């Protein structure tokens, strides 16, 4: 009798600890996600009660007619590739130098980290100022031609600008991931190789880098998913322009839903995009997990 009573009491306690989270998460993420699955098969403007089921029409339109979607997806992929490589290479270089014994290390680490704690909207805005007003002033002072280029006004340069700003903003964070990884690598391996006559480059590529793969996996995972989801920086820096040359997929989805008021179609787009993100990150994690070695 007592045991049965206790069991129910345990269950009640368990529920009181767990139920709030489950309810909150269901409401804010999982139910909306399931709703997306349904709405992607409908025509709906987001406001009216009028929701029409239209089968696969949204998906057919997306794959056969929607040039903006394709264009923004290509931009997102190009941006992501350059951004991921640029950020991680620079972050790794900084991390390697900033794990050497050096008095100013902590200050330098903090310096590179600072942009990461500023909101992306503000970052976009600061750089808008740099690319327009500050560059004009610098051109007047130096007469160097590249200060006079239209950094946000021509498609190719706008692409470069978005990349530069994005790397500048996040490199400190990835640098810290690599620093944490580098500090965990025992020194004796490197020293032994040094005594055996391996030079600094050989030591880095043959010893340090293979042992650092777990950090690389994490950093790549984060930078892939963050790059594919780029939104805020573009929103303030270029607003997708000039033309639609820097419109990312997330911004395209945002426009479709909140500017064009095509909610049904926007959910269809976002679902396809999610599936692509999941496939890419899955492949990446699998690939790098298989490369991990132990010291």
């Amino acid at each position, binding site marked *: 009798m007592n045991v049965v009573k206790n069991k129910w009491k345990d269950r009640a306690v368990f529920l009181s600890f767990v139920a709030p989270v*489950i309810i909150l998460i269901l409401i804010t993420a999982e139910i*909306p996600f399931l709703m997306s699955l349904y709405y992607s098969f409908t025509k709906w403007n987001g406001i009216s009660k009028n929701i029409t089921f239209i089968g696969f029409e949204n998906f057919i339109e997306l794959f056969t007619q929607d040039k903006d979607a394709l264009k923004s997806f290509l931009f997102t992929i190009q941006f992501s590739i350059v951004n991921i490589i640029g950020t991680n290479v620079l972050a790794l270089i900084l991390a390697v130098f900033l794990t050497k014994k050096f008095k100013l290390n902590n200050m330098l680490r903090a310096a590179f980290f600072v942009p990461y704690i500023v909101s992306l909207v*503000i970052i976009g805005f600061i750089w808008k100022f740099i690319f327009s007003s500050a560059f004009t002033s610098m051109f007047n002072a130096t007469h160097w031609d590249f200060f006079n280029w239209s950094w946000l006004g021509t498609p190719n340069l706008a692409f470069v600008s978005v990349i530069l700003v994005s790397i500048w903003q996040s490199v400190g964070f990835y640098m810290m991931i690599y620093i944490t990884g580098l500090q965990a690598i025992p020194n004796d391996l490197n020293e032994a190789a040094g005594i055996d006559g391996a030079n600094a480059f050989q030591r880095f590529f043959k010893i340090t880098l293979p042992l650092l793969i777990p950090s690389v996996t994490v950093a790549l995972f984060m930078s892939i998913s963050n790059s594919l989801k780029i*939104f805020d920086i573009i929103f303030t820096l270029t607003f997708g322009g000039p033309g639609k040359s820097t419109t990312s997929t997330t911004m395209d989805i945002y426009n479709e839903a909140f500017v064009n008021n095509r909610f049904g179609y926007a959910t269809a787009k976002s679902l396809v995009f999610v599936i692509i993100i999941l496939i890419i990150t899955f492949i990446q994690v699998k690939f790098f997990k298989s490369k991990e070695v132990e010291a």
Partner: protein
Amino acid sequence: MTLADKRNRLLIQVVLVLFALAFLYPFFLVIINTFKAYAEIVTDVVSFPKQLVFSNYTQVWNSMNYPKLFANTFVLTLASVVGIVLFGSMAGYKLSRTKTKTSAFLFFLAIAPMMLPFQSFMVTLTKLAKDLHLINHLSGLTMIYWGLGCPMAVFLIHGFVKSIPMELEECAYLDGCSPYRLFFSIILPVMMPVISTVIILNVMWIWNDFLLPLIMLNGQEATLQLAAYKFFGQYKSEWNLALTAVVLVTLPPILFFLFMQRYIIEGMVSGAVKG
């Protein structure tokens, strides 16, 4: 170490310091220009202000209604983070300690959203939030942050609890301690390292978040980020005012960062590594 080695090291250090200065130069430009009058900023952005002007700050402070927005953003961030920590740690702890199939399933349910990009359900979340009357006010937005912040919190705390020895709880249990007292007075203090990670990750996210308030508050300028965005639109060419808004909005997180630098970097990185 040879002389050449020493010289190389010095060279690397000098290069790093110069690079860091160039890296931070945009912030420097922003700051010096908030002390210039409009006429001066138009003609020269790069040099120091000829004479320090403070009127930008008073003007932006008043026209943005900074104290109210600061209070809004502060309360929103605080209430959201407190909720995330409370609900997340209770559930993370209990799910970690209960070894049943139901518990494993609920854990999966709780962390599954970590795999879902926000954009995939943002549109329908807006609709659901509207139906539940959670939009257009800060308390509704707070509840949405609870739900969106909990998966990561549950995940981190669930992992951490595994490293807490069971003996603590067993002793307390034998002494007749209730499960709630046990949790709040014994477990919670032990979990402080992971909770500080959760707090830092969420403070940074919620304070700086733009997209969610943008769609949930329907164009009202209720948080600093939203107001700043609106402000930039209004004062597009008056850089002296717009940049002052940048400084006022960014200063709180920067100060928070400077005072808690070590914890923040460790917290954010360990959150990422475990996530």
